[in-house]
């Protein structure tokens, strides 16, 4: 079973994603912010992270830099599921993928639960 850390600041969306990903067979652990997510990641050692970039206080990008600074977490795949459109990254999109280990980028307003579950399943299967 894939151990998935869901980082989502909106409580209502978090609950919907939690149910959909649990139904897809993941063990989902939820954190609303970056600081808590680091603590949770330390405890559960996730196989995969689904991350919103717009968080309160510390952004998702700050979380990614913090995460990748630990040797144990350098290879944990991250799927971004965000209200920030990927076009806003322009040239730094490659950095997200190559340096920060982002395996997929979903623009939240136009991605469905099906899309999210498919992206998670793709990563989970590739790790088997």
């Amino acid at each position: 079973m894939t151990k998935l850390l869901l980082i989502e600041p909106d409580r209502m969306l978090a609950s919907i994603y939690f149910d959909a990903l649990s139904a897809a067979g993941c063990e989902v652990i939820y954190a609303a912010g970056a600081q808590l997510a680091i603590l949770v990641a330390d405890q559960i050692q996730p196989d995969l992270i689904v991350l919103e970039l717009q968080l309160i206080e510390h952004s998702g990008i700050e979380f990614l830099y913090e995460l990748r600074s630990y040797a144990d977490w350098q290879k944990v795949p991250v799927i971004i599921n965000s209200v920030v459109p990927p076009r806003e990254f322009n040239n730094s999109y490659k950095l997200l993928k190559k340096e920060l280990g982002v395996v997929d980028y979903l623009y939240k307003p136009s991605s469905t639960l099906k899309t999210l579950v498919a992206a998670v399943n793709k990563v989970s299967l590739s790790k088997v």
Partner: protein
Amino acid sequence: MGTQEQTFQILSQELLLVVAEELKLPFMQIARLAEQAELSGQKLNTALIESTADSALKLIDNYILGVRLSLSPERLGLENVSVSSVLYDTREELYSYAKNYGVDLDLNIAGKYGPVSANKKGLEAALVSLGAALIEALPAIGTCQLRLKLATHRSRYGIVAGVYADTKQVSLSALQAGRKLSISSRQPLVNLSHSSGAGIFVADSILKAMNLNLTVSRHDKWYGIATILPLSQQLQLIT
């Protein structure tokens, strides 16, 4: 076009931008709730959808009110307003939205402060916008308890009415910076809201049109955002 009209146009466009950004959230919530019901075969949670849509409609209505009041201050009828009753009505308006987010909404209206001279509809709209923004943000802040207080107290400047939490998330300088950033940043109040914080800026615009200000405030050991309503000396004499 006069300078004043141009300024209002720019202001309303800035505000429209943050409102449009904010409205993505309830639409996403409704769309995903519908999809969830379809995928799981479970009954659609219509109460949740209704309350989410209602809250989005209130934000739109309050945005329109803010712009209309700014354009035509003559619409702004002043009346004797009891701040306690405005806070009571605000709590009623926000109750189901707070429930969706698991947030307890307390009311602290102890103390008799007498009426103030204000526009009741405008004041209530500002407090509802502000409250909705803080309800949405609170679960993401990492506070000990999901509890907000609608409260009033007397200060040396007048009667303070606002929304408070047990955690300090915003300073006056951060609020001022947020106002400036609202046009260029998709998250202008980074310590307070994970979205555009439209409810706060809409409240700000309504209060500005009423010659009031949105400011940071403390109530007992709670921190929050509030407005200060100057006491009317004449009303004090009458009541």
